[in-house]
């Protein structure tokens, strides 16, 4: 059986006219019928990618195929193809009126006969646990309820592809698992391709068949080991979080509250741990290499487990030079400036 491709992207570039940001993707394919997570810090290009995949923005350059067809060939084709993919934005927009008005919007423009509406709205609301909300004015909904309604409004049209921009960002902790099971259910029952962006690594791995990482408008080979969360504390123009007791990650500036940060694997230095105490300064961690993979471009991907777990990229030539092999004891170090914060 051949796996159908929902999207094929080749040499895609999207430039924002107003600022310097650009999304650049060389080669990217999304298999149909799967759940794919897009992960990366704010400004990584996840939302832009979702707008491109939603056929709502045209790439400045490159080729985007949606189920093997270039949807931008003609306006008619574009509108036809847009009926097959729905994007649920972060902080979704609800049309004024009632929950019902919002739900039937997609059914109405698809000219689905009215007698079907009632059954489908009931079913969609039940999925997101908003049973009986049909006649409620959307003004009276909480942020979380609005988010769930937006999800129901997308699911109700049974799209081939469902795109979700941070689907659980506004959701109460108690309902996150409900939304996650809706995502799995829709995928399993209707074999809908689902592509969602998230900051939450465990969510990405829990739900997705495939996790893709983005940073600065590019797809990168990040691994979740380099994401850490904790409550920020500040002293003398430096802040730190303590993801594990005794393991503090320092970064510049004053910060408060719960933070997540990411350290790009390229920005981490690694040393064999045989000259104890020769390294000094913040952000030094010790551990042992637990995985070693050869990647493209003569790079080795290392996984270190210890005080904290890190993913490190290193040119293969340096492995020998530094005397690093599987299970070597190592020290890693990175500058406080290399720590990227995610709100």
């Amino acid at each position, binding site marked *: 059986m051949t796996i159908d491709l929902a999207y094929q992207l080749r040499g895609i570039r999207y430039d924002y006219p107003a600022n310097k940001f650009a999304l650049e993707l060389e080669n990217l394919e999304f298999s149909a019928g799967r759940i794919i997570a897009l992960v990366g810090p704010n400004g990584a290009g996840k939302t832009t990618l979702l707008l491109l995949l939603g056929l*709502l923005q045209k790439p400045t350059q490159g080729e985007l195929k949606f189920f093997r067809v270039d949807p931008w060939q003609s306006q008619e084709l574009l*509108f036809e193809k*847009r009926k097959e*993919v*729905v994007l649920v934005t972060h902080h979704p*927009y609800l*049309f004024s009126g009632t929950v019902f008005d919002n739900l039937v919007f997609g059914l109405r*423009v698809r000219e689905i006969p009215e007698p079907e509406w009632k059954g489908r709205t009931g079913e969609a609301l039940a999925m997101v646990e908003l049973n009986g909300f049909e006649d409620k004015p959307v003004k009276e909904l909480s942020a979380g309820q609005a988010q769930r309604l937006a999800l129901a409004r997308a699911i109700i049209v049974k799209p081939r592809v469902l795109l979700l921009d941070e689907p659980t960002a506004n959701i109460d902790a108690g309902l996150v698992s409900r939304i996650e099971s809706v995502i799995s259910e829709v995928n399993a029952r209707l074999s809908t391709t689902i592509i969602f962006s998230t900051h939450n690594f465990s969510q990405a791995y829990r739900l997705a068949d495939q996790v893709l990482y983005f940073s600065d408008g590019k797809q990168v080979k990040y691994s979740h080991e380099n994401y850490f969360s904790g409550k920020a504390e500040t002293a003398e123009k430096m802040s730190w979080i303590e993801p594990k007791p005794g393991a503090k990650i320092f970064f510049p500036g004053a910060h408060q509250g719960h933070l997540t940060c990411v350290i790009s694997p390229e920005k981490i230095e690694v040393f064999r741990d045989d000259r104890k105490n020769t390294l000094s300064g913040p952000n030094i961690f010790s551990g042992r290499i637990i995985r070693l993979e050869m990647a493209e471009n003569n790079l080795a991907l290392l996984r270190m487990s210890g005080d904290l777990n890190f993913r490190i990229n290193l040119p293969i030539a340096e492995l020998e030079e530094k005397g690093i092999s599987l299970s070597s004891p190592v020290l890693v170090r990175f500058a406080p400036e290399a720590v990227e914060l995610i709100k």
Partner: protein
Amino acid sequence: MMILELLKTIWVSLKVSGSATLIASLLAVPLALFLSSTEFKGKRLILLINQTWMAAPTVVIGLLFYFLLSRTGPLGAFGILFSQTAMMIGQIVLILPLIIGFAYSALRQVDQKARLTALTLGASPSQAGWIVIKEAKYPLIIALLAGFARAVSEVGISMMLGGNIRGETRNITTTIALESSKGEFSNAVVLGILLLGITLGINLMVNTGLREKV
């Protein structure tokens, strides 16, 4: 003044200004929709010209169209000077920039996501445009009412392009001008109060009934 003549005068005002508002809206709202959803070079200039045009004195518009529509003018062949049609054209030109300006800011207030949401849910661009108009319906109604109030209360255009022909192009404002020039102040005052009543009514609708929903 006979009651029948008075009613006829009121009817001319409502008919001419009502039609002018309707036609101006049909032109202005789609244009405002286009301006509010598209970014292009020269847009600021268009908005600036529109803003300036908003303040154009009625007599200047009256004068311009008098020249255009008079027998020897470029549009003289139509023979519509001193008719309700001529008054209507003048009033359309008068209130068009006002409605464009109000409608533009009304449509800009609608979250840009409304259009995007409609499109991603499968709407065609015209359906998505309609959604944006629907989301802005109360401020848009205010724009139309403001246009109507301006049209019904102007006198320069009605006088110059309508000619104040009794039973034909004579409306509330030209009657007031005529009656007061004749020294018949009581008639002028009655009509003046009536006109104030109409504009007050519109403003009340704008300020009370609609504001709550905006």
